[in-house]
C-alpha cells in the first residue's frame, strides 16, 4: 500500500489512539523522555500524508518513491480471544528521489487488533539496523 502511495487507505487501517514509533537508540524502551526519529499519533500521520499531497511541498517536487521488501512476518503473540496479535517483520526499505536512492534494513513490529471483523493497526514500531547513523531526508514511511 505504502509503495503505491495509497496513504489514505493505509491511515484508515489505524486505530484512533495508535502510534507509529521509530526509536533513535538501539533497543530503546522510552518514547517520551529521549528523542526518537518518530513517535506520531494519528493527527501527525494525517499531517504527514496530507503534506505529501500538498501543492507547496517543495521537498516533494519531484516526489519520492519507496519500496518495501518484506520477509514473511513472524507472529510473536496470538490472542484469539481478544483478537490481538503482535507480528515481527524483517524488511529492506528503499527510498528514492531524483539521483539519490538509499536502503534501510529494519524490523517492524506491528500490534494488530481485530475490530468488527477487520484487522487494524494498534501500534507500529520500526527499528532501524543503523539507527545511530546520520541520515539525510527520510521522507516517506519505512
Amino acid at each position, binding site marked *: 500500500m505504502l509503495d503505491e502511495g495509497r496513504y489514505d487507505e493505509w491511515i484508515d487501517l489505524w486505530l484512533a489512539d495508535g502510534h507509529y514509533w521509530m526509536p533513535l537508540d538501539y533497543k530503546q524502551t522510552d518514547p517520551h*523522555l*529521549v*528523542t526518537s526519529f518518530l513517535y506520531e499519533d494519528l493527527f*501527525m500521520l494525517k499531517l504527514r500524508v496530507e503534506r505529501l499531497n500538498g501543492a507547496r511541498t517543495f521537498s516533494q517536487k519531484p516526489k519520492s518513491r519507496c519500496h518495501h521488501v518484506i520477509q514473511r512476518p513472524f507472529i510473536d503473540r496470538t490472542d484469539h480471544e481478544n483478537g490481538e496479535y503482535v507480528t515481527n517483520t524483517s524488511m529492506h526499505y528503499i527510498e528514492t528521489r531524483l539521483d539519490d536512492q538509499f536502503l534501510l534494513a529494519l524490523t517492524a513490529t506491528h500490534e494488530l487488533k481485530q475490530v468488527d471483523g477487520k484487522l487494524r493497526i494498534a501500534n507500529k514500531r520500526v527499528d532501524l539496523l543503523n539507527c545511530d547513523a546520520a541520515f539525510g531526508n527520510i521522507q516517506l514511511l519505512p
Partner: protein
Amino acid sequence: MYKQQPRQMAAEDIEDLVQGYQVHRDVYISRDVYELEMRHLFTNSWVFVGHESQTPNKGDYYATQIGDQPVIQVRHSDGEVKVLHNRCPHKGVKIAIDREGNTGKFFRCPYHAWSFKTDGCLLAIPLKKGYENTGLDETENVKGIKPVGDVRNYRGFIFARLADEGISFEDFFQGSLSSIDNMVDRSPEGRLEIAGPPLRYMHQCNWKMLVENQTDTCHPMVAHESSAGTAVKIWESLGNPEPRPPAMEIIAPFMSPYEFFEDMGIRTWPNGHGHTGVHHSIHSDYSAVPGYFEAMCEAYGEDRAKAIMDENRHNTVYFPSIMIKGPIQQLRNFIPLGPDKTLVESYIYRLVGAPDHLLARTAMYNRMINAPTSIVGHDDLEMYERAQEGLHSEGLEWVNVQRLYPGAEEDFSEEAVENGTTERQMRNQFHAWAKFMTATMPRRTELQGEAGQ
C-alpha cells in the same frame, strides 16, 4: 581523508568576500575558503565541544570534533573537564575509538600501548629502553596527548579554543552568555542534564547556510507552509478542537505572519552572536506545566521565577556553529564536513528538578522539527541543498543580506535590538567570520615581503 592545502590567500582576499550587505558565493562553495575556515576560523574562535553531563564521572570521555579536528572531552581525575586532540603522539592513531565511554585512570593507545593520564600527560611507553639516547625526550611527541589551547566550562557547557593564544572566553561571548544563563536558570536546581543521544542529520550544503537560517525569520511562513500550514488546515477542518493536539502547539507558530516575526525583535552581540525572540517568540504560548511554576518559585522566589520564565528567546546563535533554544532546552551543533557537507547534531537536556512533562515536550520538539524523518526539517533541507546547487550559477556572484541594512557604517561593536525580520544578525556573523578568519592570516604586504626575500 585527504586534506588539501588551501591556495595561499591574504587577509584582504578574505575581507573582500564580505561587503556590507553582500557575501561572495565563494564563502559557501569554495574548497579553499573551507580549508582556511578549518585552519583559522575554527581555530581562533571558541567552539562548543559538549555538555559536562556527557562525561559525569572521572574517566568518562566523549569523542567529537572542532571544525575538522578530532577531539576528546574527558573528565580528569581532579574532576575538571579537559579537551584533548584525539591523536596519539606516537604514530597518530585516534585514542578514543568509541563515541563515548569510560577509560578509567588513563588512556592507552590501542596500537603500541603508550599510555597517558586523562589530562594527556605521557604515563608510560612499553620497552622504554629502546628510546635511550635517541633524543625522544626533546621531542613534542613525548609530552603526551596535546590539549587544545584553552577550555571553559560555562554552566555545564564546554567550549574550547584550539589556538594557544587568542581572544578570551569572556571577550568572545560578552553579553550573549545571558541565553545560556536563562536556559540553565529554567532548572529549579540551576542544572541541565543530557537526555539521550542526539539526532544526527546529514545536509549536503555549507554549514553557514544552517547557521544563518537560525535567525532567518522571513522563511517559516513560506518554506514551512507545507508542514505547519497543513497542520493548521487539518486542525481547522476538524473544527479547531481544544485542547490543541500537542503537535499543533509546537508546529502552528511557524505559520505566524510577518508582523509576528517583525515585532519579536532580533538582538545582536559583538563577535557574531545574536538571537531572535526578544519580546516574544514561537515558544511563548506553550501551555503551563503543572507543578513547574511552583518548583521555580520555591527555588528562586516568585519575581525571579517569573522573570526567568517570561524570557522566551527563540534561537540564540553562538558564533560560529551552535544554536540553542532556551525555552525548550535544546542545542544544535552544526559540524562542517566539507564545503558542501554538514552534520547537524540536535541535543536535548533535562531541567534538573522540573517535571518530566517539560522533557517530553522537548523530545517531541526535537523529533518533529530536527529529525531526518521530520517534515519541518525536510522543508529547510530542501532549500539549503537548492541554494548549494544554485550558487554554482554564473548568473550572479553575490548573496544578498540587505534586509534593514543601515548603510556602510553599520556597527557591530555594541549590543543592539532591532526589527525581528532584519538580516543584521547574518551580517553580524559574516563580520565576525572575516574577523576571525583573518586574525592570524598574513596581509598582502607581508606575503609580498616573503615573496621578495
